[in-house]
């Protein structure tokens, strides 16, 4: 039994404990309330009524400069040139808009966007999105027409068709594109000359070239071909094989049914298996994107690689290699590739949407567009122009070697569909997993892709019920 003093102590402790709890909960509730308030708009100027008319001034005072605005712009690390002072300082000098550039690795951006948008707080005025994420996070972006903003007509007409997908959904614009990537075949000229080989222009010739390179250099631990076959960025590579087989990953129906079990889709996986089993480093199954495969190419552990044009720039500039790039050789078509188009869009929580749009227009302007591949070095991965006219710019005529830039443009004239749609991520993850099952002989190519189709069917049905299908494919309107 407690005595009075102990009882008072207990009561006091209980009071402090619960009192502190109430204070914390109240503080948290207040913080949550204020965090959920809509972002304040620009300050409303106040006027006071004057009782007498002011004297007429003899000279007109200049209007006060507009208050400086700082916008938050979110960039992926591989577009870091666009986030650099070299690009942003001239923009600030010209427009008075300061840019707080936030840069993140591509592989963390998706999850960060999911959390940021779900929280509903202000984070960005201009936000990175590529085509698939645009449709995924559509609810959180503002269409330009709702903001009274228009895409410059000269830009619209000048865009490479694949880049239109990035900032649009079913034809409605939410931002502007700022980056484009398309995969090429890169070859090591010195090794080809030593082996007496020419750059292959068809799939059969490509396999013959692989065999010849294997005979010539295989004993030295050099592989004919390198590519990143790890899950996480396998799908864009797969698209190159698929399109080279004349295939498509979706049907031309309203639902955009995924046709990963078509004979072309299966043949593409079989081609990947052929390369992996015979002409690639077994470790390529653990190589993500173009990181290790690029290294293998630069250090001449591989004579050829499939990746974005940046590889030839780095190989030439930093490793003193002479590369010859080529269209990815197709089996049933001359060529086809994998691509990526990226944009910035305006979130609904943006404080300065019009200023953000100015930044987007600047990123898409001719000078910046041409500057993108020119900026490639070991610090800036660099992206590629979104405008057709940029590829004819004389400043790019001799980049890597004369004709290289035109080759990039030519590759983009073949099928490079990336199949952007709201359920892209889940479909992509399933297809990548099953391709790896096929590469590692857990399943046959046919078995793997049929299993993928079974897993994907209910996903597409749900997606169609919610979004109504009809996702755009630039290939439908391109000459072919």
């Amino acid at each position, binding site marked *: 039994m407690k005595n009075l003093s102990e009882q008072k102590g207990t009561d006091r402790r209980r009071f402090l404990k619960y009192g502190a709890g109430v204070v914390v909960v109240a503080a948290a509730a207040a913080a949550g309330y204020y965090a959920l308030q809509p972002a304040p708009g620009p300050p409303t100027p106040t006027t006071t009524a004057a009782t007498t008319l002011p004297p007429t001034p003899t000279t007109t005072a200049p209007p006060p400069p507009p208050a400086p605005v700082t916008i938050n712009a979110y960039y992926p690390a591989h577009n870091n040139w666009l986030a650099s002072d070299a690009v942003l300082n001239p923009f600030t000098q010209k427009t008075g808009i300061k840019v707080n550039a936030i840069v993140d690795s591509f592989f963390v951006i998706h999850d960060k966007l999911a959390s940021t*948008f*779900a929280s509903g707080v202000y984070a960005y005025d201009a936000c990175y999105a590529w085509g698939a994420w645009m449709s995924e996070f559509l609810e959180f972006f503002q269409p330009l027409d709702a903001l009274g903003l228009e895409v410059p007509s000269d830009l619209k007409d000048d865009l490479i068709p694949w880049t239109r997908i990035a900032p649009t959904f079913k034809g409605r614009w939410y931002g502007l594109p700022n980056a484009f990537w398309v995969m090429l075949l890169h070859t090591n000229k010195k090794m080809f000359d030593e082996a007496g080989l020419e750059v292959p222009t068809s799939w059969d010739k490509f396999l013959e070239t692989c065999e010849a390179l294997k005979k010539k250099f295989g004993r030295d631990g050099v592989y004919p071909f390198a590519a990143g076959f*790890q899950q996480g960025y396998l799908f864009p590579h797969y698209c190159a094989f698929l399109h080279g087989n004349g295939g498509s990953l979706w049907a031309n129906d309203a639902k955009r049914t995924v046709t990963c079990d078509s004979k072309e889709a299966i043949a593409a996986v079989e081609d990947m298996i052929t390369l992996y089993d015979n002409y690639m480093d077994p470790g390529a199954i653990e190589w993500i994107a173009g990181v290790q495969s690029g290294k293998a190419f630069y250090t001449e552990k591989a004579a050829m690689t499939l990746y974005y044009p940046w590889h030839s720039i780095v190989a030439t500039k930093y490793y003193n290699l002479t590369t010859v790039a080529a269209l990815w050789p197709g089996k049933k078509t001359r060529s086809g590739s994998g691509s990526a188009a990226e944009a910035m869009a305006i979130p609904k929580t943006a404080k300065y949407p019009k200023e953000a749009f100015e930044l987007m227009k600047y990123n898409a302007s001719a000078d910046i567009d041409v500057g993108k591949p020119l900026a490639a070095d070991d610090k800036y991965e660099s992206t590629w122009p979104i405008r057709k006219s940029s590829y004819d710019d004389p400043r790019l005529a001799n980049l890597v070697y004369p004709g290289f830039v035109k080759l990039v443009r030519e590759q983009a004239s073949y099928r490079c569909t990336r199949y952007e749609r709201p359920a892209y991520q889940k479909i992509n993850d399933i297809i990548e*997993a099953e391709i*790896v099952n096929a590469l590692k002989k857990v399943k046959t190519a046919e078995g793997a892709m049929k299993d993928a189709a079974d897993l994907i069917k209910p996903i597409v049905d749900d997606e169609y019920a919610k979004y109504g299908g009809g996702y755009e494919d630039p290939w439908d309107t391109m000459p072919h």
Partner: protein
Amino acid sequence: MIAVFIVFPLVYSLYLTFNSFSLRDLVPTFVGLGNYFKTAQDKLFIAALTQTTYFTLLTMLTGIPLAIGLALVLNEDFPGRTLARVCLLIPWAMPPITVAIMFSYILNTSFGVVNFLLRSLGLTATSITFFGDPNLALNSLVLINLWKITPLYAIIFLSALQNIPSEVVESAKVYGANAVRRFTTVTLPYLRPTVVVIAILSGLLSLQVFDIIISITNGGPGFKTYMLYFYAYKVTFDWLDAGYGATVSYIVTAISVIFALLILRYRRTR
């Protein structure tokens, strides 16, 4: 503090499990037990459950004997024993992400030291893709997990060993019991309560494994290293289905609680 950081998230996520709730639009739609029933037909959930069970059992059944063995060695008197005991805690003290990156280099197919040694010693003709081979990836993760957590269990077992009355061990020696018999009839009975504790700890930590998966394999190759918590993360943040992701999280939690209760009940009946 508890209300804000524990009670509210628990209650809200439980609420989500009864709703179809996507991070695309943040609009909850009541589905009752629909999310729970969905797990029974979800091949990827079943794969994650199977693989988590395999990972947990293998870690427990290998880790506990290994830890006891290490503890027995460290309980003996030998030069450098103190240093050995200190070094034993280094794996446990290292951040999980550091361990993951370290092993991704050690076991790398192209330049990893393990493959280099295997090829140099003529044990293999070609490199082994530890994380790229569906038959090896999960076992490689078990190995990494064991490397990290077994030392801690060994230290706990060592402490238990040191609490065994020495006169009991001595009298067993006097009665002619050899080392194996002393271990089975004297040491092991004294260690039984500790084994129960370590089994629960090992099981719970293994059920919750996430960091080495997200850092090394990201669920691959194929779906081979999909584990329950990783799957919950993937469903929620990659596929934006927060309602279903919350459901998977709750199922893992329920499994963890049932697992702990079963072991405790087994201990009480013994």
